[in-house]
């Protein structure tokens, strides 16, 4: 595999220069620009200040915005996330950094029973404008408690929005939209993509509305719906499929809620075949939900059942040959797509 993967340009405003940024750099830019724009935006998390997190993604922010707005917390995820909920209700727009998405398990009460429900329970009187940034993704040999992709959990809960970007362009635009949104948003960042995925990002301010899918590659024969790190996998599979005469479309929903059902259904009505691929668990997960949306919406145009590929239903193992067997690959997608197209 190459060290970095190039991503196609987003729909950039015409006449502007596009720079190449990594996924991590795009996230840092979004944070810096929003903190400059709005003094109510603060960033809380473990080792977010001088260290800039273990992934170095937020490095430099404390120098610009100071220790009151870029705050190193104790290792108290439930406490500082709940504190952010209270601060969001009362005038700040906090961003909480959850170093490993696995630690969502530690904050779920604050997210699910508090943040998600406060607007509704108060009859619309209180708002909780906050962003929970969490990482996801396996294959770093980080084992069972540092490798999970748990974006299905918040997607299940009314009151939360969930973004799961795959490119630097999308990450920046979605994160800016999330910070400006008046609802609690869980924002998932793939750890491997931070340094590995590179792509063009325009210089000037832009936001990508939550709930708008993006067609990453147009095609006729089969739709590959893919999220986060799996978008690169789907694009790789699409290139392999092209060689045997199968023209695949790759659609990235970009947010799991709100979900752009229309774009997904329209793509499959055109191609008549669909595989949904996601790095979260296969059972009771994102792939199941999206597959059912498509099965209902594109039923009369489908050639066969919507298929899906997700993480194997096991805790993520440490040993490289075992871990590699748990994550969907280009080859898995290629084989399944080929079979569905009878080639």
């Amino acid at each position, binding site marked *: 595999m190459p060290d970095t993967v190039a991503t196609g340009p987003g729909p950039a405003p015409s006449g502007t220069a596009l720079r190449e940024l990594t996924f991590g750099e795009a996230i840092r830019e979004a944070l810096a620009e929003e903190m400059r724009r709005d003094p109510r935006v603060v960033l809380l998390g473990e080792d977010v200040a001088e*260290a800039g997190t273990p992934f170095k993604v937020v490095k430099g922010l404390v120098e610009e915005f100071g220790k009151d707005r870029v705050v190193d917390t104790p290792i108290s995820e439930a406490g500082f996330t709940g504190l952010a909920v209270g601060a969001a209700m009362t005038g700040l727009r906090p961003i909480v950094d959850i170093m490993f998405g696995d630690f969502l398990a530690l904050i779920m009460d604050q997210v699910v029973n508090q943040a998600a429900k406060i607007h509704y329970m108060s009859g619309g009187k209180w708002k909780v404008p906050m962003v929970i940034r969490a990482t996801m993704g396996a294959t770093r*040999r980080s084992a069972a*408690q540092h490798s999970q992709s748990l974006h299905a959990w918040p997607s299940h809960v009314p009151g939360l929005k969930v973004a799961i970007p795959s490119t630097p362009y999308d990450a920046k635009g979605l994160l800016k939209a999330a910070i400006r949104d008046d609802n609690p948003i869980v924002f998932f960042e793939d750890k491997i993509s931070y340094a590995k995925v590179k792509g063009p990002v325009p210089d000037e301010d832009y936001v990508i509305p939550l709930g708008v899918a993006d067609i990453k590659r147009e095609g006729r024969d089969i739709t590959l719906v893919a999220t986060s790190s799996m978008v690169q996998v789907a694009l790789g599979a699409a290139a392999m499929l092209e060689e045997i005469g199968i023209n695949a479309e790759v659609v990235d929903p970009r947010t799991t809620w709100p979900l752009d059902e229309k774009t997904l259904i329209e793509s499959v009505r055109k191609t008549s075949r669909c595989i949904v691929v996601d790095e979260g668990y296969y059972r009771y997960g994102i792939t199941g939900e999206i597959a059912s949306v498509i099965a209902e919406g594109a039923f009369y145009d489908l050639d066969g059942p919507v298929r899906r590929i997700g993480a194997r239903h096991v805790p993520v*193992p440490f040993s*490289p040959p075992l871990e590699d067997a748990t994550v969907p690959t280009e080859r898995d997608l290629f084989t399944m797509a080929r079979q569905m197209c009878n080639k």
Partner: protein
Amino acid sequence: MATAPNPATTGVEAGTPLRMYRQMIAIRLFEERVNDLYTRALMPGLAHLYIGEEAVAVGICEALRADDYITSTHRGHGHCLAKGAAPHLMFAELLGKEAGYCKGKGGSMHIADPATGNLGANAIVGGGAALATGAAYASKVLGQGRVAVCFFGEGALGQGVLYESMNLAQLWKLPVIYACENNLYNEYTHYSETTAGDPVARPAAFGLPAETVDGQDVRAVHAAASRMVERARRGDGPGFLLLNTYRFRGHHVGDIAREYYRPKHEEQHWMAERDPVALHAAWLVSEGLADQAMLDRIEKEVAAEMDAAVEFAQNAPYPDPQRVDEDVYA
């Protein structure tokens, strides 16, 4: 499959000063080999070294019975070894091999071994607090007289579950000891920036006896741990040890440029003046319990054991990917 080397026996007895020296040098030499494997890209994942903190694990585990329990942390190799784990099976786990303690499924941060009472290392900070308390509860209900020790870094003082656990333990007089290893840093942040008040005021609030111990002095650690363990085994309830110590290396092996959070002179001071292995060696010689030749012999023997253990692990096969689905359910 390669054959298992025998753990070296040097004829030193449990709980004795010479045995504690042997155990500390074993951890030191184990970790040096981990560092070497990792920097040569032969070990996947992350490696959090225990170098500098050896007296804590050894002083405490030498006060325990074989059937007593421990819970460990992301920086857990020292705890595992001190509780009696075999280095070759640990290295095999660190390299993701089938022969490892967890068949390669756990790795460095998850070594577990029921045979030595090791409930498991844990990659969730504070993740062992309730588990150790539960083991103490089971020991009490089952009338086994076993004690559980919960090792944790001072970073876990930030986790609420620790306080819920201490409250339960004291209410129910459970035989559990909370061993807080204060190495001064939570990852890249000094603990004083994340910890309000006095660490030992926390157990005091629940009525747990707490002792603050020089964690570089293995004999002091052993003496304090022995008092707490005896008390817990008698049925007098939980205790808390605050062990002041220092990690000599980075938070993990790759944490090299660390002057922005930890000054070099501080590191040099601890390494030159407060090395637990060197301090204990000097004491053994000054008390006439060993001479340098004897210490050298022990070190050589342990080094050979560790080299054989590494070789065993390197030669051991990876698990068959087909086995990935095994062990999800009992």
